[in-house]
């Protein structure tokens, strides 16, 4: 293949990149835990469940003495749903190292597997985001009832805000999952 002069310059520039002198110490790398490299999947599930439990516990702590059955029932719902989510996604949450030779697959196989994993995670977002949504609705409903008892109208802006947030989140994840599916289809046809 004939080499264009521009491309020869590009290759020379790439090969002559300045060397960064960073010692590589396997012991040090083994101990290292870098937040940026943590699994997105794992952090998404944990932060969603954590926030749901936080909201539910605040509501239960503040309103349980009033023996509001609806509040207590909803709090229990959040906790049960969170527990089911943790059990259902235990493999994604557990910080596990891949099999030593898993990364020695061809780039095509590996990338496809990664895209499939991410797509499945996005498609199941309704499960792992459920407790947080329920806890937000519970918090909003409880707080507005407490501020202005019996006036559902006052709670409307909060409900609309939550509904809008939920719809945007769902649409974003559906779009991301579709983009990934499109890319999976593309590389599957190669």
């Amino acid at each position, binding site marked *: 293949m004939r080499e264009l002069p521009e*491309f020869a310059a590009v290759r020379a520039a790439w090969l002559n990149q300045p060397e960064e002198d960073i010692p590589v110490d396997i012991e040090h790398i083994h101990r290292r835990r870098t937040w940026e490299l943590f699994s997105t999947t794992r952090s998404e599930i944990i932060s969603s469940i954590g926030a749901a439990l936080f909201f539910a516990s605040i509501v239960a702590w503040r309103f349980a003495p009033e023996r509001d059955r609806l509040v207590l029932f909803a709090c229990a719902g959040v906790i049960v749903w969170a527990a089911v989510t943790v059990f259902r996604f235990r493999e994604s949450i557990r910080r596990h190292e891949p099999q030593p030779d898993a990364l020695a697959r061809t780039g*095509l196989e590996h990338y496809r597997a990664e895209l499939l994993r991410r797509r499945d995670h996005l498609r199941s977002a309704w499960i792992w985001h459920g407790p947080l949504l329920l806890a937000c609705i519970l918090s909003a409903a409880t707080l507005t009832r407490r501020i202005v008892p019996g006036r559902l109208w006052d709670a409307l802006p909060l409900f609309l805000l939550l509904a809008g947030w939920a719809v945007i989140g769902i649409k974003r994840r559906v779009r991301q999952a579709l983009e990934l599916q499109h890319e999976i289809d593309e590389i599957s046809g190669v």
Partner: protein
Amino acid sequence: MGHGAKNSGSQEQNELYTRAVAECGRMLDRLPGGYEADPDKRRDLRQEIHLQLWRSFGAFDGRCSLKTWTLRVAHNTAASYVVRERRMNAKLISLEEIERTLESVEQPRDIDREMALREVQQVILKLRPLDRQIIISYLEGMDAASIADITGLTAANIAMKIHRIKKILAHRIREEQSYA
């Protein structure tokens, strides 16, 4: 690069890792530049690549050459990183999409290498991981058959993509030079 590898792995694993670094060390140094623009994150990615490489040699079975194994592990570690970081990043595109946006530009007389490196990194960072594997391997001087071993794509597909990459990069360089 210093490699003070004090570890608890088997002797064979350590020997394979040392050989891989001796054979591909500079390639492994340059490779993260095609996957991460931020210098600190790039250093982390580089360390991650070395960790995964060392781990992988515990299961080295000779299914491919040491060099192919090393580069597969390095690229796949970086590809997983790109997928994880993807929700924060701009949309990644294919070579074909970049190619469609090219317009005709005059050929420049002199080419500034620093600018060329900047351009090539900007192009690479926009691409999907598989296209990045091809472009980085090609810049490292590998032929289509060797790149096919690493990526799992056919040699014909690789050749076609290399043709596109060269066209895109040449165009970007000309465009940049014409503005300078």
